[in-house]
């Protein structure tokens, strides 16, 4: 994945991700604009905001799947990345077993032709145990429930063993016990010093478990420690943004004082 461009300056040493006036979107419409700041290594950040506020767009920019319209989004060159998208293009009718799905996480290590070794099979088995799917190894993926599939996808992230983990709304339509287990994994990753970014809608979860938060409403509303970001006042401001695209919307002029976050 092309995450760095030799022409651009590298990411600052202490940061895992650095944004500089990042604007990204679809066509000429920005889904997120004028985001500047950096995410330090080893932080656990929740990205919150109403529907259409640019959360997924931001995550796609970080993965490199979406190129910015202007500004930059730089990821530390030495950081490996694992991404769990919101709208997975996973084909659930594909004749694969749970282990086949989870073993995709070995791609960075083994690539196209590398043989899967005993240690790889062990890593897959360990990951399945960690997400509570022991005994599901040979189950076809079309027989999994929504929660079980999400656990399997978390197992794949575990196997990827990445420095930077991006999870886009991983708790949608998932029961409470599963959410508790998955939150446990996220906190474990945080404890291991990995940088984790999670798009979340449930503000109670954010307050309870996430030290840092970034509140988006197309532009950044607030970014910093969760207690200062997720406040009634900020949430009210975030709700007031205009979700629909307007063909007659004025062209964006640089704002005098953009929110600058250091998380």
């Amino acid at each position, binding site marked *: *994945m092309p995450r760095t461009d030799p022409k651009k300056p590298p990411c600052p040493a202490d940061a895992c991700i650095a944004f500089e006036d990042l604007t990204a979107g679809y066509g000429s419409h920005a889904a997120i604009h004028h985001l500047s700041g950096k995410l330090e290594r080893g932080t656990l950040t929740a990205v919150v905001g109403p529907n259409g506020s640019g959360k997924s767009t931001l995550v796609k920019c970080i993965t490199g799947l979406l190129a910015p319209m202007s500004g930059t989004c730089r990821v530390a060159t030495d950081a490996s990345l694992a991404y769990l998208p919101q709208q*997975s*293009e996973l*084909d659930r009718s594909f*004749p694969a077993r749970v282990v086949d799905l989870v073993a995709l996480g070995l791609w960075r290590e083994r*690539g*196209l*032709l590398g043989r899967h070794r005993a240690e790889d099979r062990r890593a897959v088995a360990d990951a399945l145990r960690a997400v509570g799917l022991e005994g599901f190894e040979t189950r*076809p993926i079309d027989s999994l429930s929504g929660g079980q599939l999400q656990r399997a996808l978390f197992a794949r992230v575990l196997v990827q063993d990445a420095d930077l983990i991006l999870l886009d709304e991983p708790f949608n339509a998932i029961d409470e016990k599963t959410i508790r287990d998955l939150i446990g994994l996220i906190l474990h990753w945080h404890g291991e010093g990995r940088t984790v970014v999670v798009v979340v809608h449930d503000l109670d979860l954010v307050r309870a478990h996430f030290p840092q938060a970034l509140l988006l409403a197309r532009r950044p509303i607030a970014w910093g420690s969760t207690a200062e970001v997720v406040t009634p006042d900020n949430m009210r401001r975030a709700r007031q943004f205009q979700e629909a695209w307007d063909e007659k919307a004025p062209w964006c002029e640089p704002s005098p004082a953009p929110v600058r976050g250091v998380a």
Partner: protein
Amino acid sequence: MVDGVVAPFMEFAFMQRALAGALLLSLSACPVGVFLMLRRMSLTGDAMSHAILPGAAAGFMLYGLEIVPMTIGGLIAGAIVALGAGAVARLTVQKEDASMAAFYLVSLAIGVVMVSLRGSSVDLMHVLFGTVLALNDDALWLIGLVASVTLATTVLLWRALVAECLDPLFLRSVSRLGGAVHFAFLGLVVLNLVAGFQALGTLLSVGLMILPGAAARFWVNDVLAMCVVSVGIGIVSSLGGLLLSYHASLPSGPAIILSAGVVYLVSLLAGPRGVLRPALPRRHHRTA
């Protein structure tokens, strides 16, 4: 019984060649068909088989019923349509099914116009429906070559092919191979259609690709197993079709595809994942 099955192949060299060609084609085209089906691109295979017609026709107009020029022409036409449709799908909002339909329809029309400008309807029938009973050395070598290339590429790209079908977005997040694999795969589709059209004709060569793979889906739930089963079904259909053609004096291409169609129907009805099994009343179920 044995006489009816073995004797035709013992006695006639053209039957041996036909059998060799059909077996090689089964080995090569059936796994490609499995991946076409898993990627929900079975109809793309059908479209591509129409798309190679003008290339084959151009070779036919210039050199007559010769394998090499017709093959090269077919490859060129197939590549133009595959790349053109793929490029439109990747660069615009239009999905590949629509762009593929647009490209192949134009291609098919050009092909039919070219064949009808010159030549009789017998020639057109040759191009459209093939002549498996008249495979010459060149044609067999070509089919063998395509089979080798196909098997080697499939083994080499196996993991990426599976990943691209199972979770394309994930593959894009860890590797840049996705696009290359897609086009390499379309290349294999075109190669196998071109290899098949001398034997089965441009319109029916896709049948030996699609039907065995589609039938295999009713028996097993594992990609590798599906490939193996589909090759087996391809071989059985080839044998059955050639014998049917010999004994009933039917055109060989359609006879092979019809045999594959019968296997498909049987699989649809009797396979463990077919229509009848779930309809059977189940007296017992496990508690977990």
